[in-house]
């Protein structure tokens, strides 16, 4: 209850600040227009005009809210003007990419902690791979996959996986290495093989790390999908929606798409968080 109150208070503060920002940032344009039209504006006129522009620098909250409402609830979900439609396209690729990325991250991390050669050779390159600007190679990935006939969901999912595997890899390597000496020594005294040590000790110890990493990973996966949607011809999905909004300076539409993306991300992160709570509770690791 108190939590809801706290959240509402913060949201209220943000909305107030936002209105303030909208008035301030849009005022320049309104004033210029007024000078050009040679009219005097009263303060109330000025404010009301800054909050009702077609192409504002900062759209007012109610403008974004109305656009969001319009494109989420009043449109048929199969219509391409519905944000739900675009969000679903993006969500599919994100989930697939997140799945692939998490799996890849876990498998690589298992290899890295067990095979020295992999630890020494893969890790530096995994790091380097993340410094490659994804937006630069995304078109190439699309082109290459396109030329061998793969289109649609998969290329986007691959780009999304590329961004999400890294946090999972780093977190899992750390997690799998988190058991302390006594615990490892104990397994040694049982002459436990790598497999039992892994399943009985390393894996359970890594679970909290895995979930933390997955929270970052799922957000990254969404970013990856959106990036991947740009060079597929920017046809469908929230990424395409954002971009087309941007070509035509339709700030309000852009912000609405942005919020849809943020809701999606927050929802995904929350979902992982819930899975985390449930799992850790079952494992007796939260009290």
């Amino acid at each position, binding site marked *: 209850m108190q939590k809801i109150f706290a959240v509402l208070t913060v949201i209220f503060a943000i909305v107030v600040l936002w209105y303030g920002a909208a008035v301030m940032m849009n005022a320049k344009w309104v004033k210029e227009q007024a000078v050009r039209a040679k009219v005097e504006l009263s303060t109330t006129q000025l404010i009301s005009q800054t909050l009702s522009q077609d192409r504002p620098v900062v759209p007012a909250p109610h403008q974004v809210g109305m656009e969001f409402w319009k494109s989420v609830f009043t449109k048929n979900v199969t219509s391409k003007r519905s944000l739900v439609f675009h969000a679903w396209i993006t969500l599919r690729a994100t989930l697939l990419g997140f799945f692939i990325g998490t799996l890849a991250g876990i498998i690589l991390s298992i290899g890295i902690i067990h095979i020295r050669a992999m630890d020494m050779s893969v890790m530096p390159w995994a790091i380097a791979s993340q410094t490659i600007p994804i937006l630069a190679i995304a078109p190439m990935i699309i082109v290459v996959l396109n030329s061998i006939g793969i289109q649609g969901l998969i290329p986007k999912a691959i780009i999304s996986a590329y961004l999400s595997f890294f946090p999972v890899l780093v977190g899992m390597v750390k997690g799998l290495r988190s058991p302390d000496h006594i*615990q490892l020594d104990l397994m040694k*005294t049982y002459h436990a093989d790598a497999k039992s040590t892994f399943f*009985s000790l390393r894996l359970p110890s890594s679970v909290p790390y895995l979930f933390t990493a997955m929270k970052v990973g799922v957000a990254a996966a969404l970013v990856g999908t959106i990036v991947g949607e740009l060079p597929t011809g920017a046809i469908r999905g929230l990424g395409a929606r954002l971009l087309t909004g941007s070509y035509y300076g339709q700030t309000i539409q852009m912000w609405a798409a942005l919020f849809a993306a943020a809701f999606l991300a927050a929802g995904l992160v929350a979902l992982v968080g819930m899975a985390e709570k449930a799992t850790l509770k079952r494992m007796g690791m939260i009290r």
Partner: protein
Amino acid sequence: MHSDFHVVNAKDLCLTFETNDGPVHALKDVNLQIDKGDFVSFIGPSGCGKTTLLRAIAALEHPTSGELIVNGTTPDLAREDRAYGYVFQAAGLFPWRTIAGNIKLPLEIMGFAKSEQKERADKVLKLVDLEGFGNKFPWQLSGGMQQRASIARALAFDADLLLMDEPFGALDEIVRDHLNEQLLELWERTHKTIAFVTHSIPEAVYLSTKIVVMSPRPGRITDVIESTLPKERPLSIRDSQEFIDIAHRVREGLRFGHGDGAD
């Protein structure tokens, strides 16, 4: 009483740790034989290398020089044969497993049948007075109870050699007496060989066939006392003159080690 087969045989064993400010001689020129069926206690001031010696026997540390033979082979091979059960100084229970789950851990790893796992877990839980706590998580138990659980874990599979690093250090005297009796009984019944680290002179004297007194800086053996007490040991034996004499000798050995040390 001793067979001619040495379960543990250390010759001129040295073990040095390299630390950021110079080497620490945790063990220096240690010579020791433990025979089958022996109950050997290690006693000595803190930092004298008791834990290190036990760990070396368990192949968890590797000697810098000297020879160490366990079960007629190298410590490593002995470890791979699952020749011993080890009870650590700290409980080291896995927080994501219940107490029963922790006890079943070695059994799972060694491939016992599910039904037997449960049976054995129940048995050892009873042995350490933790009946009814099987489904609790470690952090729901007091430190002492945790340590008892870790003893149960090492008892669960029947290794011939038990290495115990101050297993009863955190327990109260009554439980300790109880467990001492039970341990002695177990030892007699099963002919296990036990290496046991303790800080308590009465405990060492009461339990052991052989008491190894150690001294720090560098860690070494200063005295090995073969106990003349009979195998049958009621608690009341602790009032006998023989007991008091042995305890006195251990105390003297310890004091000597201390005088020799830093203070």
